[in-house]
């Protein structure tokens, strides 16, 4: 966390970038899984209410950390891609990463607005009531619900591409690209 050098100095991401990547990754996977499970629970049960709350708390956390991560990234450039990488692959890589950053912010935002439109305030960790930007609105509720769902499917697709990239660089290119993001290598 104290590593203030530009990340490109030794070809690795900074400790902070690595920590944020994995922390957000775990939160997103947990939040996605909770969202999947809780919406499959029929009717209304205490477990469902609990899962909804936890899901929202995770979303708020990801939202805040994602902004922090974007700020960090803007001030600490990512290490360069392997020299021989074709332009198209660079473009795809940059596009997927850019979209992943966007979704880390847009997905919690859409969920938050969906909750507000449904008339349910988000109280972070059950302690901090967040402002309700919009009042209850049946039409907006439907719109934000669908937005939240479709953005999550988009995230799932991008996550698959992200993992395919890992497979490609590890098994096909064997360029050791992954070591840039593995913690505790130094």
């Amino acid at each position: 966390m104290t590593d203030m050098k530009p990340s490109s100095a030794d070809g690795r991401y900074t400790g902070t970038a690595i920590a944020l990547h994995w922390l957000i990754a775990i939160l997103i996977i947990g939040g996605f899984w909770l969202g999947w499970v809780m919406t499959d629970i029929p009717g209304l049960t205490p477990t469902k209410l609990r899962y909804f709350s936890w899901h929202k708390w995770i979303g708020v956390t990801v939202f805040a950390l994602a902004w922090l991560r974007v700020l960090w990234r803007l001030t600490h450039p990512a290490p360069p891609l392997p020299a021989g990488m074709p332009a198209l692959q660079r473009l795809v890589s940059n596009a997927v990463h850019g979209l992943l950053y966007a979704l880390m912010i847009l997905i919690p935002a859409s969920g938050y607005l969906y909750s507000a439109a449904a008339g349910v305030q988000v109280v972070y960790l059950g302690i901090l009531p967040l402002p309700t930007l919009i009042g209850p609105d049946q039409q907006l509720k439907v719109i934000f619900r669908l937005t939240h769902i479709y953005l999550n499917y988009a995230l799932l697709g991008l996550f698959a591409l992200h993992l395919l990239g890992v497979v490609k660089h590890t098994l096909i290119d064997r360029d050791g690209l992954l070591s840039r993001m593995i913690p505790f290598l130094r």
Partner: protein
Amino acid sequence: MSVSILKSAGRLGLQLAAGGVLVLNAAHAAWAQVDTSKSVISAVSKQMNVPVDGKFKKFTASIDFDPAKPAAAKAQFSVDVASYDLGDESFNKEVRGKDWFDAATFPNATFVSTSIVSSGAGTYSVSGKLTIKGKSSDVVVPVTFKQDGANQVFDGALPIKRLQFNIGQGEWKDTSVVADDVQLKFHIVSAAKK
């Protein structure tokens, strides 16, 4: 359940037998008509510390109130618990069910005043019997009163404990998800008696 109510409040018994207070209102033309389109009765619960506001879409009420003679005043309410709206039909369905309101067995929650005393300028303490899900409780409701042209406007809130009325049984007894404390709120607009 209705035996005790019939004993304590004959009017309510008539109302239950008639299946609605509207009939009763017709028989008591002197009572002021509550404008249900302008009036709101809601119950605010806390789910995982999130305040959740639900409105009772259907209720009937009659209020006989003269600010100069509060001792002679009377109020009664009958709320259709199946009309409780949380803004989501699957939630509403659960709340109408046996664990919550059990609307099939106890269709109405009622309040019948027993005494009304002034407790300051424009405020009154309304004592009465609150009955929800067949359980009765004597309550004192602080009410503010305001004359608005030809209308009488009453506002107030009453904190209750839901478990006292068996609201939320089974796994819902767990107050860490839905708190025991529930706030009943009302805004009643009534045309003054002719």
